[in-house]
Structures are given as C-alpha cells and as structure tokens.
C-alpha cells in the first residue's frame, strides 16, 4: 500500500509461499548455513546457498545414465532346465509378455523399467547442467516438467528387488545363476536415488522462471 513496497520491496517485507502446503511465510535475509523452514509443514523453503548440490545431481545423473547401458545389455539371470538354457535381459520379459498377448503389460514394463528411467535421468542431467553452467539452453522448462511428471515412475529400485525375488522363485523350477546385469541395475537404482536427493527442484523452478 505505502511507497515502501511499491516497486522493489526489501526481502524482509516480502511474503513467500511454501511449495508444499502453500502457507504464506515472511521472507528474510538468511545467514550462511541457515534455512527458512515452513512453520506449518516443516518443508525447507529457502536456503542461503540455493542449488549448491546441483553439480552433484548432474554427476550422479550422468553416472546413472552410464550404468544404465550395461544394466540393459547384460543378462539379469541365466535359467536352465535339462540342458537347455536361456539368458534373461530386461527386454526379454517385455517380449515374453508381448508374445503371450499381454501387450499392455509389456508396454507398462517397457515404459517403467527402460523408457522412464532414461528420460528421467536425461532431463535431470539437462536441467542441472543448465544451472551448473548458468546457461539458458532451449527446452529447459519442458525438461523440468518431464522431471516432475516422471517422479512417481522411478521404479528401478523396485525392479532390482524383483530380480532378487525372481532368482529365489525360479530355483524351484530349475537352475538359476546370478549374472552381473542385476548388479548394474542395483547400481543404477542407487545412483538415481542419490541424483534425486541432490536435485534442488525449487531452485531449478526459479531458474526456469527467470527469477533466480
């Protein structure tokens, strides 16, 4: 209302919104290593050094992308009955479901175990690379929206556990042997979780909007 906050209000007079519960909070200047937390839900709303872990997120996402290649190329397990044996990759299961007439299930497994991790890691590394290099590359907003949309589809850790359970289950049917493929999947899952931990989404959102 007054002349004070008409054009450029000092940060002590501004209100900011908690991204999680939309409560209005009084903004203020932060000391180093200080955080502004929401009083209602406890979410960290603002930190003195936004995006400090963004470079680590980039590194973890790139590492996960690299381990995703051997995870998809190497067999998860080798199953053998009476002399004939078979190597199982992630894609073999998709093919099996597709052949048996369960195309939707095959598509679902393909999407959530192969396509979604690749897209998710690509967009996380793209956005965090943009922030780390401070470059405004095209399609940054689209990549950030993709990160948000694929958030519930991070199913690689689940797939890694399913591999272990299936080894146990197949032991009753024949001979099963562990293969390095499942270890690569586990490595990718761990690296993906680290990348998610380090990825500062609030900071990326502000950067994409151009507020900084």
């Amino acid at each position, binding site marked *: 209302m007054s002349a004070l906050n008409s054009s450029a209000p000092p940060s002590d007079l501004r209100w900011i919104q908690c991204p999680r519960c939309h409560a209005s909070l009084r903004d203020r200047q932060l000391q180093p290593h200080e955080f502004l937390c929401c009083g209602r839900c406890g979410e960290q709303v603002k930190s003195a050094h936004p995006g400090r872990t963004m470079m680590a997120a980039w590194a973890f996402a790139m590492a996960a992308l690299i381990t995703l290649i051997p995870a998809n190329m190497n067999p998860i397990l080798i199953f053998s*009955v009476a002399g004939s044996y078979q190597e*199982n990759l992630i894609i073999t299961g998709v093919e*099996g479901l597709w052949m048996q007439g369960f195309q939707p*299930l095959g598509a679902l497994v393909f999407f959530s175990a192969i396509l979604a991790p690749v897209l998710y890691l690509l967009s996380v590394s793209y956005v965090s690379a943009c922030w780390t290099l401070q470059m405004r590359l095209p399609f940054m907003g689209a990549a950030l929206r993709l990160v948000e949309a694929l958030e519930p589809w991070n199913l690689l850790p689940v797939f890694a*556990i399913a591999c272990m*359970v299936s080894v146990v289950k197949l032991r009753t*049917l024949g001979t099963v042997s562990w293969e390095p493929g499942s270890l690569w999947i586990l490595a990718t899952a761990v690296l993906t979780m680290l990348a998610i931990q380090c990825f500062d989404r609030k900071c990326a959102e502000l950067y994409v909007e151009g507020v900084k």
Partner: protein
Amino acid sequence: MTAHHRYELSKALTVAAIILYIPANFLPVMTITITGQVESLTVMGGVMELYDTGLVPVAVVVFLASVVVPAVKLVSLSWLLSLHGSDISQSRRMKVHAFLTRIGTWAMIDVFLLSILVAVGQLGILASVQAEVGALFFAVMIICTLYAADVYKTHMIWRHPLPKSQ
C-alpha cells in the same frame, strides 16, 4: 487443472482402484507349468508358495509389497479424500500423504516379477510361465493408486473448498 478437478479425479481413480482390487486379488496372475504339472497362482498364492518353500523373508517382502501396500494405500487414500475440505488432523494427513508417495511404487514388484518369470516361458514344455488376466487388473489397479496419490497435491489438504454456488 483446478484444485476441485484434481480432487474429483483423485476420488474417481480411488473408487476405480477399490473396484479393481477385487479381481486383481481373486483372479490368477500366472500359470506355472513344470514337467507336466499345471498350477494357477493368484497374488496371495504366489506368496504362500514362497512361504512353503521355506523362504520366509522373501515371502514377507513380496507379501508386504503386493498385498499390504495396495490395501494400506486404498484405505489411507479414501481417508484423505473423505476429510478433504475439513480441518481435522491436517498435519497428520500431510505425513500420511508423504508416506503414500514413498511406498506407492513398491506394489509394482509383482508386475516386474511376472515379466522376469514370463521370459522363462520361452523355454518350451519343460518349464513355462504364462501370464493371466489377473495381472492386467493388478497393474491397472496399481496405476490408478499411483495417479490418485500424485493428482491430489498436499497443499489441497489446507485449502478450503469453493462454495457450492460458484
């Protein structure tokens, strides 16, 4: 999408998931053939089989992920949605929602397990695993609960609904 649309969509998805929960748990998920013996297994049957072979920890993991998680999700989603717009235990609802999104994906373990087992089916008559209709219902049920939790945003717990006249 406004908050009201999100609420309605979440409600519809939850109801759909509750309906799908029944065929998903009572229809067989897969048929296993070992040297001539044919066996149809439901979700619960798969857990019982693991338990019978003496692998209790693995059976517990699969039981938690594919039977308990969907049930807990459906109950807490309907609790969250039934309290929408009221101001009862709002901070507890925030915690429940965070918990929901964390455990939500684990139910997919059954679908992945099936996809790995089905690959064995290509070995022919000696041992084969065939997917059944129940798996389809199960997968759709899981997707419904995933989306219902994702569409209902946490800030909507705190916002009061619009008056009916608008």
